[in-house]
């Protein structure tokens, strides 16, 4: 995984602010820890090359 150019706390705070989400102080450490886990998983998915024709597996039927 590529090392982010800023700390996980800055990342989590910025994401929360972008959603107008006020993170209670008691949540911050836990959210950072879980975000790290998700980033590792996200890297696996991101790095897997897919053809442009591969559509998301949504099941919406009009």
């Amino acid at each position, binding site marked *: 995984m590529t090392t982010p150019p800023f700390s996980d706390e800055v990342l989590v705070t910025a994401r929360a602010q972008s959603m107008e989400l006020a993170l209670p102080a008691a949540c911050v450490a836990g959210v950072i820890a879980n975000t790290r886990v998700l980033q590792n998983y996200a890297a696996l*998915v991101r790095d897997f090359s*897919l053809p442009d024709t591969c559509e998301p597996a949504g*099941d919406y039927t009009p």
Partner: protein
Amino acid sequence: MTRFASALAIAQDIRSGKRSASSVMQTVLATIDQHDSAIHSVTHLFAQQAMQQAHAVDAMLARKEALPPLAGVPFGVKDLFDIQGHVTTAGSIVLRNTPPAAQDAAIVARLRAAGAIPVATLNMDEFAYGFATDNAHYGITRNPHDTSRMAGGSSGGSAAAVAAGFLPLTLGTDTNGSIRVPASLCGVWGLKPTLGRLPRAGAYPFSASLDVVGHFAGTLDDLMAAFYIMADSPVEPEPQNLRAACLGGWFAQNLSPALAAAISRVCHHLGLSGTTELPQTPTARAASFLITAAEGGTLHLPRLRAAAEDYDPATRDRLLAGAMLPASTYVQAQRFRRWFRQQVHALFEQVDVLIAPAVMCEAPRLDDPTIMLDGKPASARANLGLYTQPISLPGLPVLCLPLSNTGTLPLGLQLVAAPGREAALFSLARKLEHAGLAGRCPLDTQQAA
């Protein structure tokens, strides 16, 4: 004797007049009252209503009316299924002020129409997000085989209630392994049907892309009978001459010696040599994890904004992190899911049933919740779904069977089929049961007393 009796045996005894439905219900309620304090599987008892319904079954029999197939059979539901008139809490206090359910969940209604009687709601991880059934609001469900150990989750109360012999049949849900993990650790039969085969109406959601409703039973026959009733479909013939294959690679790593030996016995009995691999298994697990986090987080975000402090802190932090995942990550995970589905379907052109471990070892201790991964201790709660999460992604039907005679606490095996082919799972499970390789793990004498 009602404790540990199968659903079909109870129904037969009531139909034949050998026992009344009310005496069965009295015994069930007394057994739970006497023994559940050590296990803590039940969160709410419908004692009065259950007795009334049992009396109604007895009255039908007295009038010589035909009884439906599960008349008088007690069952329990994970605490996220709607029961008419009862507030569905989904293992949380966040929903405690919501109105009572106006009607039963769809599969509860189908079981009730078949004569079965809901007796209890059963403990779970808050909002089904976990593998431990360690609930900050309602307590920890303990493994009936060894109360110092985890029951697994998130449908841990449902698995434990069957393992303890309180109820012959219970309902659960499985998003990433929440039926299969506790079924494995508690030594009972569990079924995660094909995604969409059973209606989810009235089951509180977690991850809409992956949620599946299913059930636990003490016998394979009960598991099958309840499945066809809940699917509202006729019993399908069990196909013979199935082509089976054991999954290797990811699924052959980190197995306890006892589990590796048990799988070897199964493969030997079936005449299997060599293994088959699921492609990109770690990425499949990752995609399933990400989809769950994003969908669960998004579902709860409005309530998290308003009342984050009401959540179990562990659930709250997972949901918040999931709610903040970038859209591109979620969409990419869903694109990978499409690709993975194609690979899996291609695999099922060569084979009918895949065999894989359910959990890598016996139930971890509650005071040392670790498992060994690559020779190092790792968090059990984060990794009990190691073998179930990748298989969740394509929405395949999975039967989790209890392995027999392992000389250990319970160990489980996943049988996996192509979508809609539950009958193939039942057929292979039956073969293994007849060979003495699968069957409910009995409690030792002291725990069953």
